């Protein structure tokens, strides 16, 4: 959010000091126990924190009583269907809606011109990350970048296949879909471009007239002179170019929205699963020109997010608008085909990386040139930005230089996708380290060991200016190798070979960042019955906040977890809150809930002192009750609350310092050289998540994260046909997914090196599984194929690509016969 734009330490072209231990920490970086009002949290008060408490969400979800958006229906509701562009780039000459208007059951056919006439504006996406710890991404001329206005329906032209250009509202979904087919758009096809490198080439088609050359962000970071000097002296330089493929989130619940309008009050209610109802409300109110007080957004059960639901979708604004025009409820539910075309997508980074080493294999400097494909307009620069801060990975690299560009193309917009930006750069550095080891004839584990950031150098400032808060990187690697049974690799190799298979192992270290919206608010109420209600602004989509947040408050108030109820996802109750993204939730919510709990206990103590007749500071608080050593009287929190005056405290907290979860993952594959079938036979990882509130939930996050990373490396891909500009992955029949029968059990371990930046020492869980997985899988496959002469392969590493690589390899013929 731009209001947090302050500080100058990450400006482009500012020459930061060489990387190393960070001696001058920015103000407010470390957790200040005194200023926070909660002091140091004694571990002995943790009763349920750290325990695998079973989830309270589950009962409704296993009995079919979940409340997903499409499960809601309001009497008299209508259905919306979209008319979408079949072209990647085409001017809209005219839209003839007459036939559709006449179709049975149709109430309205609306176009972009109607939206303009009604005064609707673009979605205010605010894509440039701007906390004081984010790198500053700017236009080539140094100004704030042009992002391409995101109207709900365009009036000039369609800029990607699937872009909605008109909406039909009818009595049934089928009637709306039938009528949408009758809308005639007079298109003028225009030249198109899908690849970000092609889009920067001279003469490439222009996505926006405002941005000649399509690169709307071009910023440089780091000390270029120092990097050049180090490269000039280096004993060896390793260099590589990678494309981190475009994927899509495939949340199992397709996106949906139901808008209801109450003409009596003038208020609209929008049921729409998202990554945070507060943002949806703010941005949608602005788009429609509504007083925010006239909009209520509800986000109950959300069937997966992974970043794709963080930003506003046009259909959410469209159903709101239609329901106000027609004074009837209007629902839209995307089909899976629509999701493949128009869910915000992920990754799509081209990166050119170079690493300079001395003769002993010590890293001297690094160069990176990163190009992010944002699609037809810029919804979020999070992936480019997050990755920029982490190009040096887990390693001490004294100097680094990065050029970061973002480019418009005629494709669906990209957005943060699980572990936004981090898997991309982790893939680049880890592959580069393997390449350097091979070229220099060094052991790849030993090369890593030599260069990992040491715990004694924490907090550590990287050459990109990121401050790694804490971590024991080498210990992670050792623990992961032990978990993996690294020593058994030769025996497993022999065993695989005896079965005619090629075995390969890939190891990757990672460090990722959790930044996210800095503000969070908690309101805690204790009712006379002892029930505790906590209102908080995060938005889970499977992460179990109703359970893990209750654990935190239960321990703070020393009350059973079952008594604590978490309220989220209703903007009439939640006034402020940053939503759930970037692994921010437990850190921000945990901190502010602890603060609000402490405020509540302070109030309660004063009341208890009155009741018990002793000075407040002499009271003990144990098991949810105040007592005094000279008395056998006690008073519980529940007894201090009355129906008229429940115990209540609210706190808003702002926390800027990012944290850096880290770890190591190892993947083993077996490849059948005849069929090129790849099987993952073993996967082990250690994730340092800082304080772990609920290990059952964190392990679950690791499992799912691994599968998503493995999916991208092995099967998932959103390719575009260069000639026609058509997306080739339009359904689950064209898009390979992790399935029950193509992934193994995972061996996951947690490491808890507490972060000094917040009271619990939380870092984050959830992205650690995905971050290294692109690298581990690819490195394992390359390890298996190295004896056959294969040195490079790009994701996804499908059997077809393997086969091509094997047949193109110089030693292919000899070693295969």
């Amino acid at each position, binding site marked *: 959010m731009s209001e947090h734009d302050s500080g100058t330490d990450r400006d482009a072209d500012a020459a930061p000091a060489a990387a190393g231990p960070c001696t001058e920490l920015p103000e407010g970086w470390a957790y200040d126990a005194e200023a926070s009002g909660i002091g140091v949290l004694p571990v002995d008060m943790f009763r349920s924190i750290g325990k695998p408490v079973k989830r309270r969400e*589950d009962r409704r979800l296993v009995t079919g009583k979940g409340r997903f958006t499409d499960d809601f229906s309001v009497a008299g509701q209508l259905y919306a269907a979209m008319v979408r562009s079949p072209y990647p780039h085409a001017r809209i000459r005219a839209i003839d809606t007459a036939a559709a208007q006449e179709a049975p059951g149709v109430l309205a056919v609306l176009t972009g011109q109607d939206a303009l006439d009604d005064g609707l504006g673009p979605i205010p996406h605010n894509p440039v990350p701007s906390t004081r710890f984010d790198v500053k991404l700017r236009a080539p001329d140094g100004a704030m970048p042009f992002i391409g206005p995101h109207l709900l329906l365009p009036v000039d032209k369609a800029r990607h296949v699937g872009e909605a250009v008109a909406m039909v509202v009818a009595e049934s979904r*089928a009637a709306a879909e039938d009528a949408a087919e009758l809308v005639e758009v007079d298109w003028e096809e225009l030249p198109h471009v899908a690849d970000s490198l092609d889009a920067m080439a001279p003469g490439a088609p222009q996505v926006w007239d405002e941005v000649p050359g399509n690169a709307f962000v071009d910023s440089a970071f780091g000390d270029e002179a120092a990097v050049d000097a180090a490269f000039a002296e280096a004993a060896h330089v390793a260099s590589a170019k990678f494309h981190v493929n475009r994927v899509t989130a495939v949340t199992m619940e397709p996106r949906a929205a139901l808008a209801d309008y109450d003409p009596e009050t003038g208020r609209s209610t929008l049921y729409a699963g998202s990554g945070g109802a507060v943002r949806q409300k703010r941005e949608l109110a602005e788009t429609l020109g509504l007083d925010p007080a006239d909009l209520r957004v509800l986000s109950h059960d959300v*069937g997966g997010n992974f970043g794709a639901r963080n930003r506003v979708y046009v259909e959410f604004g469209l159903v709101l608008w239609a329901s106000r025009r027609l004074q009837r409820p209007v629902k839209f539910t995307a089909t899976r085909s629509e999701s493949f075309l128009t869910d915000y997508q992920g990754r799509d980074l081209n990166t050119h990386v170079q690493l300079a080493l001395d003769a002993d294999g010590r890293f001297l400097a690094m160069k990176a040139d990163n190009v992010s494909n944002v699609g037809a307009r810029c919804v979020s620069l999070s992936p480019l930005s997050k990755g920029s801060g982490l190009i040096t990975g887990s390693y001490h690299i004294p100097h680094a230089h990065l050029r970061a560009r973002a480019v418009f193309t005629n494709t669906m917009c990209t957005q943060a996708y699980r572990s936004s930006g981090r898997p991309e750069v982790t893939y680049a550095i880890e592959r580069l380290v393997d390449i350097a080891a091979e070229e220099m004839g060094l052991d790849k584990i030993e090369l890593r060991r030599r260069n990992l950031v040491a715990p004694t150098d924490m907090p550590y400032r990287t050459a990109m200016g990121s401050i790694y808060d804490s971590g024991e990187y080498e210990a992670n690697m050792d623990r992961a190798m032990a978990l993996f049974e690294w020593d058994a690799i030769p025996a497993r190799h022999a065993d695989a070979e005896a079965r005619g298979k090629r075995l390969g192992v890939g190891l990757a270290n990672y460090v990722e960042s959790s930044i996210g919206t800095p503000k969070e608010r908690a309101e805690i109420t204790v009712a006379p019955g002892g029930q505790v209600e906590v209102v908080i602004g995060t938005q889970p989509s*499977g*992460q179990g906040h109703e359970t893990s947040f209750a654990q935190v408050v239960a321990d703070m108030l020393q009350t059973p977890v079952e008594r604590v109820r978490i309220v989220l996802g209703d903007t009439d109750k939640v006034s402020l809150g940053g939503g759930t993204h970037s692994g921010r939730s437990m850190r921000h919510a945990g901190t502010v809930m602890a603060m609000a709990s402490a405020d509540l206990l302070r109030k309660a103590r004063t009341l208890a002192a009155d009741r018990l007749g002793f000075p407040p500071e002499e009271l003990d608080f144990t098991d949810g009750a105040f007592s005094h050593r000279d008395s056998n009287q006690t008073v519980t929190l529940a007894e201090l609350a009355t129906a008229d005056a429940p115990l209540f405290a609210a706190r808003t907290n702002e926390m800027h310092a990012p944290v850096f979860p880290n770890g190591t993952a190892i993947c083993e594959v077996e490849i059948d050289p005849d069929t090129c079938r790849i099987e993952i036979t073993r996967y082990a990882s250690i994730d340092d998540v800082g304080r772990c509130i609920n290990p059952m939930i964190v392990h679950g996050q690791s499992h799912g994260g691994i599968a*998503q990373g493995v999916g991208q490396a092995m099967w998932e891909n959103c390719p575009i046909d260069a000639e026609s500009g058509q997306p080739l992955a339009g*359904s689950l029949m064209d898009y390979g997914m992790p399935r029950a029968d193509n992934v193994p059990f995972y061996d996951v371990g947690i490491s808890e090196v507490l972060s000094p930046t917040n009271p619990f020492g939380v870092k984050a869980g959830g992205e650690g599984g995905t971050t290294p997985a692109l690298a581990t899988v690819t490195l394992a496959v390359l390890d298996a194929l190295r004896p056959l002469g294969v040195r490079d392969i790009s994701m996804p590493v499908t059997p077809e690509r393997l086969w091509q690589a094997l047949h193109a390899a110089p030693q292919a013929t000899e070693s295969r016969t």
Partner: protein
Amino acid sequence: MSDVTINVNGTDRSATVEDRTLLVDFLREALGLTGTHVGCDTSQCGACTVILDGKAVKSCTVLAVMAEGSEVRTIEGLAEGDELHPVQAAFCKHHALQCGFCTPGMIMAAVNILERHGPDIDEALVRHQLEGNLCRCTGYHNIVKAVLDAAQQTRIAAE
């Protein structure tokens, strides 16, 4: 339009629907049984899995009129009052769900695996049988564990 009567979770339920109405829409829209989900339009995801005359089917590939006179079990009909079905209980115990969207279909598929194969099943069979049910959250680890444990519980109960 056709009149359709289907026995759903032990009760005959009737509605008049368009001939093109899918069984899943009949359940969700006509009967309000929203526990059965729709996750795709190509019969790939399994979110809509119900048990039709003793066999797990994807209810998005069955027309409501084709199920006329049949018996359908959905996620809503699985628990006996407050008592969860062993598969439901195992899903909770093993954290086999995160967002819970795939869960009803996954559970119905798993229940049917146990019904068809009995409790003596192993990991490979469970993974193979669940191949048509997609989950984006769990990486399948805890789902497979839960199904194997439910089988184990059934074995113990039978002894």
